[in-house]
């Protein structure tokens, strides 16, 4: 077997060296009745590289590849062009096959990258500090809610109706076990967000308000007043960004007063990958740093005074604090953080702003074009690269019909909020730099035909 270097002769020599007659002697502590004498039934035996590649490629071919059709899906996962450099670098064995940098003298590559990543993320989100990444946006969002509870010693979180329904679902699942009190609502198919409502709900028991920016329908709202009102009542503002490219063009939540800003970093460098692995972004004000979950990389010096980096403030973490840790998180999303960081370094400020402008301009043009289709109404008055259409027919079956014609039209709100009648005509359409004018035309004509 190509991954196993021991030869039969090695095995015999080694068994002899350890004083065992056969390999079974080494499994002597396993009760006899639990020891299997043969390979596990119902599974195939080993296969050549060629054969495995063929089998899996056959499965891959059954899927409609986003890049091969007009494609407009977003809602927390966006298709952007990732420079070839990114994938080349993350496949370098020194990054790919390294472990968590617990031995900093021989992990400065990963550590320095994480320090750079933390700085990029903090600046992008408008915060003082950021951690070395979380699993994804949805888990980062929940961790932010628990962090707000630790800081405020209050357990009531107001969740905006514009937060991604999967993120809401994750928080609800967890809150059921932790006793956090979550106030949630369904979004309305209209241009205004629920910020005004949220402001009215903040009281002296509120730990935090959680708001997505831009929100699940693509709407963009000023968070400044929400932040100020939350602070007046001693509550925190948690902002969630699922499309970080937007921050190349829009003010960051931190600039508007958010205390904790979390996000899904997938847009930068990572790719769609059917939902994972992604990279959770987590940033906050400096005064809260000791309440943060997850790994943190910090600067220090070595014995010769040279600058170097280490994992730090680990007294928050499970391997030191065990049941008193701020979170049970151990693994972060290191390689995806690297991909994010490389892509962001290639873009730089200039590239990110340019990319954001491209996205926004494309979305504006697409929204204008699609809104001209009879039976299509543009819901948003504000958006970045994603907007919601109200169709004259139910959107979910329409998405399926268009998929049959080779067009991935967007995410129907019926998929995200099944059974909610008021939302079933909603279709969320994302437009990025990868969307061509021909794609938009194809969608417009397909909509026109279907809705006629």
């Amino acid at each position, binding site marked *: 077997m190509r991954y196993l270097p021991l030869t039969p002769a090695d095995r015999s020599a080694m068994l002899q060296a*350890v004083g065992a007659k056969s390999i079974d002697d080494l499994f002597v502590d396993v009760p006899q009745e639990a020891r299997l004498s043969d390979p596990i039934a119902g599974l195939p035996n080993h296969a050549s590289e060629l054969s*495995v590649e063929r089998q899996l490629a056959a499965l891959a071919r059954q899927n409609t590849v986003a890049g091969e059709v007009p494609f407009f899906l977003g809602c927390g996962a966006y298709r952007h062009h990732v420079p070839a450099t990114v994938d080349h670098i993350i496949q370098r064995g020194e990054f790919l096959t390294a472990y968590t940098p617990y031995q900093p003298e021989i992990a400065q590559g990963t550590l320095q990258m994480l320090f750079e990543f933390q700085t990029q993320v903090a600046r992008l989100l408008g915060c003082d500090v950021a951690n070395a990444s979380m699993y994804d946006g949805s888990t980062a969002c929940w961790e932010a809610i628990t962090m707000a509870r630790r800081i405020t010693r209050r357990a009531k979180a107001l969740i905006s109706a514009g937060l991604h329904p999967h993120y809401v679902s994750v928080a609800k699942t967890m809150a059921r076990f932790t006793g956090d009190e979550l106030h949630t609502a369904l979004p309305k198919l209209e241009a205004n967000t629920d910020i005004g409502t949220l402001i009215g709900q903040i009281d002296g028991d509120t730990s935090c308000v959680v708001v997505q920016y831009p929100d699940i329908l693509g709407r963009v709202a000023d968070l400044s007043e929400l932040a100020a009102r939350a602070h007046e009542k001693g509550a925190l503002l948690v902002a969630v960004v699922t499309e970080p490219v937007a921050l190349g063009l829009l003010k960051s939540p931190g600039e508007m007063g958010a205390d904790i800003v979390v996000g899904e970093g997938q847009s930068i460098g990572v790719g769609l990958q059917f939902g994972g692995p992604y990279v959770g972004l987590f940033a906050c004000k400096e005064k809260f740093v000791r309440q943060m979950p997850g790994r943190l990389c910090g600067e220090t010096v070595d*014995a010769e005074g040279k600058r170097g980096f280490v994992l730090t403030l*680990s007294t928050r973490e499970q391997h030191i604090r065990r*049941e008193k840790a701020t979170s049970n998180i151990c693994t972060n999303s290191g390689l995806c953080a690297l991909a994010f960081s490389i892509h962001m370094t290639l873009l730089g400020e200039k590239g990110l702003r340019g990319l954001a402008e491209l996205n926004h301009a494309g979305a504006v043009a697409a929204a204008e074009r699609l809104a001209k289709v009879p039976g299509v109404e543009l819901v948003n008055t504000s958006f970045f690269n994603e907007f919601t259409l109200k169709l004259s027919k139910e959107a979910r079956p329409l998405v399926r019909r268009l998929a049959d014609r080779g067009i991935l039209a967007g995410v129907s709100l019926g998929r995200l909020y099944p059974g909610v009648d008021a939302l079933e005509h909603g279709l969320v359409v994302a437009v990025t730099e990868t969307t061509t004018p021909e794609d938009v035309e194809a969608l417009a004509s397909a909509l026109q035909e279907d809705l006629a």
Partner: protein
Amino acid sequence: MSMNRQGRVSRPEGETAANTETFTGNRALMLEEPLIFEIGDEHTTGVDLPSLAPPRNGEGDHAKHGGGVASEASPSVPRPLHHAPDGARSPSPFRGGAGLERVRPIGLPGLSEPEAIRHYTRLSRQNYAIDLGLFPLGSCTMKHNPRLNEKVARLPGFADIHPLAPQETVQGAYALIHLVADWLCKLTGMPAVAMSPKAGAHGELCGLLAIRSALEARGDARSVVLVPESAHGTNPATAAFAGYAVENIPATPEGRVDFEALKRRLGPDVAAVMITNPNTCGLFERDMKRIADAVHAAGAFVYCDGANFNAIVGRVRPGDLGVDAMHINLHKTFSTPHGGGGPGSGPVVFSAALAPFAPLPFVEKQGDHYHLVEEETAEEHHAHSFGRMVAFHGQMGMFTRAAAYMLSHGADGLRQVSEDAVLNANYILRSLDDLLDAPFGDSGPCMHEALFSDEGMAEGFTTLDIAKGLIDEGYHPMTMYFPLVVHGAMLVEPTETESKGNLDQFIGALRSVAARAKNGDPALKAAPHFAPRRRLDETLAARKPVLVWKDPEVAQAAE
């Protein structure tokens, strides 16, 4: 700007030429690399973005429609793409919300492509990695990461599909998830698996939430989770997160769970016992079945930490030992890359008793068709599910890699994996136990990892010194100071992907370093000598945390 361009006078102590300082601070192939914030700037970019397409003829004036859809194919007139440094408006009409356009700079430096490649390539060379050599971190299973995995994960049919795509368009993706799920169920002898947990600790949480849901469903929530002293830190952290009080179970002198003590503690308040098997001392818990029977008799559940599944994969099925839930780190047993700290993937297998409580979503096969059971369809299919743990469906990119690995090895190859992993670990144990103290060496063979203590080192010499000495020998150190039940623990897990020659050289190196520690070699206290950095001041890092880069001038002004 951090680079030493002044040069320095050689130290006066008359050190050898090897210690001669260089102008750059570099040492031949050992290259120093500044931060991107020190070499990049906000006006440089390493990407050429497609132009904003010009408006089509007859569609209004340029000012209004300047922002068309991007098209690389369109022969566009060059036009200003970016904000000018002074924050001038973009050429497209801004509809991002009144007053919300970014005006202040973000502070993100850019590098040209060659500079970026060089920056990250230089950084990469400051890392140790499996590709460079043996990486014997106990409990971490740093095995070879096959490149076929990487190739398969990048097939556009897996990599370039959206998690919310219509289900008919991603049948192959669901089939892939189902394939991995099926393998995991068969390899563990368990009837169900939750694929969505993002990593091992997330899987632990998944298991405990299912346990708590099952207990609550019978109106018996309970309050305590028992965890052995030798457990990973994630176990108690997870139990606490799930709302349980954590109590330790002692170990026997031979390094296993004290069955009698455990049995005495069982009672109506105990919800679950979390056991790592093989355990973190590298030993198989012989009493596992008896433990499970006693735990079940007391109305509680058995959670097994599957971090060490590599030792038994293909030879022992946890389902046969009475386990109710176990996470499997695909980045350990199934060779997906650790990536410098993730992403991981932690599917959880469940017994029939817990399966109804497994999280959403999951893939179900009906005939030739796969469909996703989500919140929407949960009522009819999966009414007791404790809910969703994560957006979308889990770590697809890890499932594809694990699938490539499973199919490559097959049932027969995986059996050989555990055999070789255990053989390699025993070879290390018996090649070193005359020189290093092996606290459980007399308990019999070890499983996939060999545990040593720091007993017998010279005054003032510790496990840390041995670890740093190994760095100079060209190895990543073993896991240090874990498990906590052994003083100065050194946990060595070679994995099955090392040749005998590699093991022999490593054994030689470790013997040499251990002998130096026993003899009190002062040079060892200062190791590593040859790494990109000497020992780093972790106390300073924690006392005055510097977590982001600040422009030195700005930072100074702020103080």
